[in-house]
Every structure is written in C-alpha cells, then in structure tokens.
C-alpha cells in the first residue's frame, strides 16, 4: 500500500468514526453497508463529506464500485492523484 493510500484510508476511517457515534472496528475489509448498517442517505452524505474533505469529485459510477472501506480508499486516492 502506498503512503498516500494509507493516509487516505486513515482519514476515511476517522471521518466514519465521527458519524458512527459508536465504537467500531474499522479496516480495509469493512463492508460499508452490510457491516456498518448505514442506510443509503447516510452513505451518500458521507461520500459528499469526503468530496469536501479531499476537494475532489466522486462521480456516481465510481461510488457504485465501492463495497469495502478499502475500495473507497482506492477510489478517493485515485481521484486525489488527478488533482
């Protein structure tokens, strides 16, 4: 894992912990919808907050490929690289 990917993932996990408001074991394999039981409105809001945090645009088709936190970190990391 590259250093930026690692940082991205750490930041994403930190952001998620803020909205979860309960302790949770989060890593790259955590399934965002199934393991965290977040409804689609909360996930959408979280994705938009990541766009703001990293100053990127995450198109919907890229969101569709995301299942785990690791997937999400990779997508965000790639889009950050484009800036």
């Amino acid at each position: 894992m590259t250093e930026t990917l690692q940082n991205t993932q750490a930041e994403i996990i930190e952001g998620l912990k803020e909205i979860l408001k309960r302790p949770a074991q989060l890593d790259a394999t955590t399934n965002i919808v199934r393991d965290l039981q977040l409804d689609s409105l909360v996930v959408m809001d979280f994705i938009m907050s990541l766009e703001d945090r990293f100053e990127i645009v995450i198109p919907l088709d890229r969101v569709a490929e995301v299942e785990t936190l690791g997937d999400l970190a990779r997508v965000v990391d790639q889009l950050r690289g484009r800036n």
Partner: protein
Amino acid sequence: MSILSKFAPLRQTYDQLRSVGQNPFEMVFEDMLSSTEGIYRGKKTILLGTNNYLGLTFDEACIEESVAAVRAHGTGTTGSRIANGSYGTHRKLESDLAKYFNRQHCMVFSTGYQANLGMLSTLAGKGDYLLLDTDSHASIYDGARLGHAEVVRFRHNDPDDLRKRLKRLANEPGQKLVVVEGIYSMLGDTAPLREFAEVKREMGAWLMVDEAHSLGVLGEHGRGLAEEAGVEADCDFIVGTFSKSLGSVGGFCVSNVPEFDILRVACRPYMFTASLPPAVMASTITALRRMQEQPERRQRLHENAQRLYHGLRKLGFAVGPQCSPIVSVAVPEVPVAVEFWNRLLEGGVYLNLAMPPATPTPSPLLRSSVSAVHTPAQIDRAVQLFETVGRQLGVLPPAVAPARKRAPVASAIPAHAEVAMLASGGAR
C-alpha cells in the same frame, strides 16, 4: 433458486405491509367520481394524493375534445414518430407548448419520466458532467444512468454547494448540465432558482428545470418556478409532464437552444417508443388552454394549499418547510406512518405514504397533494381526521379531554423498509 430470489427482503417488507392493513402500493379504486373523489372498497373517499393540481381530469371541454379526437383519429398511433410519422396533433401540441413558454422549440414524450430519461441521457454525453440535486426524482437519476456522462450530486437546494463542485470541475473540458426541480415532490419545497441561475452563469454551465409539480402552480401565467423567480432566460431547458396539472399523460421539453431539433433523431427514449395517442393529445391541448383561460384555478389551488398546510401546522404536525400544494407530514417511525395511513383511508381520506430512502430524510411521510377543485369542506375534513388519528397514535399530544384508547400500533415493519423502492425517488 428463482430469478426473483433477490427480491426476498422486498417481498418480506411488502407482505408485512399487507398484514397491517391495506397496501399503499396496490390500491385499486372501483370508481372515480370526480377529480377529488373515488370509490374505495365501496366507500366514497376523498382523493388527497393525486397531483391533480388544477382538477382538469373531469373538465367538460377536455373530455369533449378527447372524445372527438378518438373518433376522428383512432385509439392509438401504433408506433413512434420516427417510424410511423407524426400526426398534425403532435405538431400542434408542440407548437402550443412552445408558444406558451415563449420558446422556439418543443419536443413531446410519451411520459414525463421518458422526457427526463431522454433529455438527460442525450444532452450530456461522454466526457460531460451532470450535476444533480441529491433529492432528485427517480426519473432524473435514471436518465443520468442511461447516459454516458459523469454524474455528480450537490446538496439539496444549496447553490453554494453546487458552485463549489463546479469549481472543482472547472478544468475539465466537458459540458456541465445542472438539473433542479421547480417543486420537489416529497416535501413541496422549491429550488432557490435565482441563486442557481447565478451560479450557472458564473460557472458557464447549462441549466435544466423539471417543472413537473410547478407547471400550472407557480408563476403569474403558471409557467412554473422559472417564471416565478424571473429567470426563464437562464433556464436552457424546461422539462415537465402532462400527468399532473394538465390531467393526462405525457412529457415535454422546451428550449431556445439552437438546433434543438437534432435531438429528435438522437434521443432514444423519444425515438424508440410509441408516440402519444390522439385522445391524450387533444385533452392536453385543451387543458393547456383551460389553464390559461382560468387563472382562478391557480388562485383556488393556493387557497386550498394554505388551508391544509396551516391547518396541519397549527395542530403541531411536522409539515414541510414551505407552503405549497404538496403538503407532507413527517411521522417519526414507519410502523406509525403505516397505521396512520390506514386509519386515514378507513376514515375516507386517501393520500400517499412515502418511505425512506425515497424520502429526503429518514422519516416516512404522509404526503398530500391539494387540488384547485377540493372544497374547503373536504380540506377541513382531512385536517380533522389528521387530528383524530394523530392523537390516537400519539403523533400529537392528547387533546385536553384524552382521546379514546386504541390498540397499540403493530411494529412489524422494519424501520427502513425497502418498499420505498416502489415509490418515486427509489434510485438513491
């Protein structure tokens, strides 16, 4: 393993809904008596959830013209305009709409849903960007999915959030098309269109407004939010539907963008489906005329909206942020909302039950839409019934004299019922 096995969770939710009472997603009315009354299970029921804003579905002139058209031109066109050709009526409907909106071009579609599918998927191509409000209708999300543009969402009714996202895309070469709605169908709130128009101008984007719920409702001439906000010139494309204020079925897009007509041979949801039948076009043309001849309908619509919105608000119900002909009451829990909806129906008032994630917040909604032809007595009856049921279910605090105790609410429905996918907006 059936090909339908994947729907097992949805099936479960659906069955649970049925077990509570009537299923809000499979209502059958035995008869329609007027634009505001139908017969449900043998009983006269006030229709308070049919988007029939101007009450034109039973207008004498619309019916007569429709009957004459079906006699003169038959029951259907049996094909698309590209394959079978257009009737003079298609052209007349388009030119009447273009004239009404003061635009050069108009294309009509077989539904409003298809108008959005067609316009979004065709206008924004590969390399372009579609910027959608998060609370957009399912037809807007689906249109975005059908096309090849990148799809980006901005926060609901937030022009600054849109600006921020457009800035991030400033160096991308593609065209940017922003899509907003005149009145949002779930809560009845309007878009801050002046501010959106400003952002659009500043950032060099295109702007489309879906006036599905605002045509005939907003603006001095009923042209919708763009007219009311005084920014028609900034709205490059207006889409809308005939299925609400105009009381029929079909959709349209009007525009002043040069060479708009090329879309007729590029837009698949226009090209590969049967065109509107003569009877529908005849009533729509007449309804468009009636709407202009009778601005008092709009006046009455707003009086009725005020009566319902303020009636419910005064009682303490959580209504939407703005008074409009769409009046929605948020109820904290799905099981309570389902029971509430059933008791309203038993009491003779039909409206819509909307559940998350089709709703903009996690709360389910009891969604009403008011018509110009509701009588004040019908509205009052609805408010009164809302109060009675609200107190029975503890959505409102008990009245001074405590209400009769009722059976507790079944809690069989999971809090985030997937049944919402059946209602509009299910794409989120």
